């Protein structure tokens, strides 16, 4: 499979992932398991808080959250540290939810539809980056 075809397949599989399990019942399951209805994947609230501490972020610093899905865990890290946040992913359904989540933090926040393999950002412009269970 070519790189382009692989990218397309990955994008479609994640679009499918976020199109399902979006009901209130599914959100309640996520909240019970991970500690937040916004969370996606396997990172719990406690783990997101640990990441916030390890990344040594604070107000005025900038975090890139790659493959953020619904804004997780970047929105939580930004909320805890007061840093600025840029969340990126491909599925628009997930980014729509992320847009709601990222504004909860006090720092500046943006949501960008972008492929993690070819980021539309200049060199050396982030103080920290996070990505959970997304590798390509």
């Amino acid at each position, binding site marked *: 499979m070519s790189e382009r075809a692989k990218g397309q397949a990955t994008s479609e599989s994640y679009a499918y992932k976020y199109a399902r399990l979006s009901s209130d019942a*599914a959100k309640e*399951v996520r909240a019970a398991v991970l500690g937040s209805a916004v969370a996606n994947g*396997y990172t719990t609230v406690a783990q997101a808080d640990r990441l916030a501490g*390890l990344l040594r972020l604070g107000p005025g610093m900038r975090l890139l959250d790659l493959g953020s899905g619904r804004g997780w865990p970047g929105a939580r890290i930004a909320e805890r540290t007061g840093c600025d946040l840029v969340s990126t992913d491909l599925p628009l359904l997930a980014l729509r939810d992320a847009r709601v989540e990222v504004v909860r933090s006090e720092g500046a926040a943006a949501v960008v539809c972008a492929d993690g393999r070819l*980021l539309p950002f200049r*060199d050396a*412009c982030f103080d920290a*980056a996070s*990505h959970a269970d997304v590798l390509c």
Partner: protein
Amino acid sequence: MLRECARVLRPGGLLAAVAIECPPGLSAADAELAAVLGPADVHADGALVEMAATVGLEPLHVVDWTHGLRAVAERTITALEGASEAIRLTEGDAVYEEELSKKARMVEGIDRGVLVRTLVIARRGRGALPGARRGLAS
């Protein structure tokens, strides 16, 4: 993706990367099993920590989060079963069964030693990055 992370991080900037991956040294048969039991995008191209180092990210901490992954998968099974009626009604039987099966496979993969979840905290070095592409103009 790791290469792009390194490029957009300022020198000294930190990356937190978490991945579900195959532990090092798996046989071909076990790697195949991991791909069946793990998530579709299970990372099987080499240890995350080694990959980070090759793109100019110096690993500072490596933490095994496998125990947490197993706990989340098990709790999800319990929560899904508890909410089965509502989930079946709103998401459909197929989605419900698929989710249950996915999480059960994950637990099996961990118990059989073919799946782990690793957190790596790495720091972008201060020198030039190996093989980095040029980003947008500053």
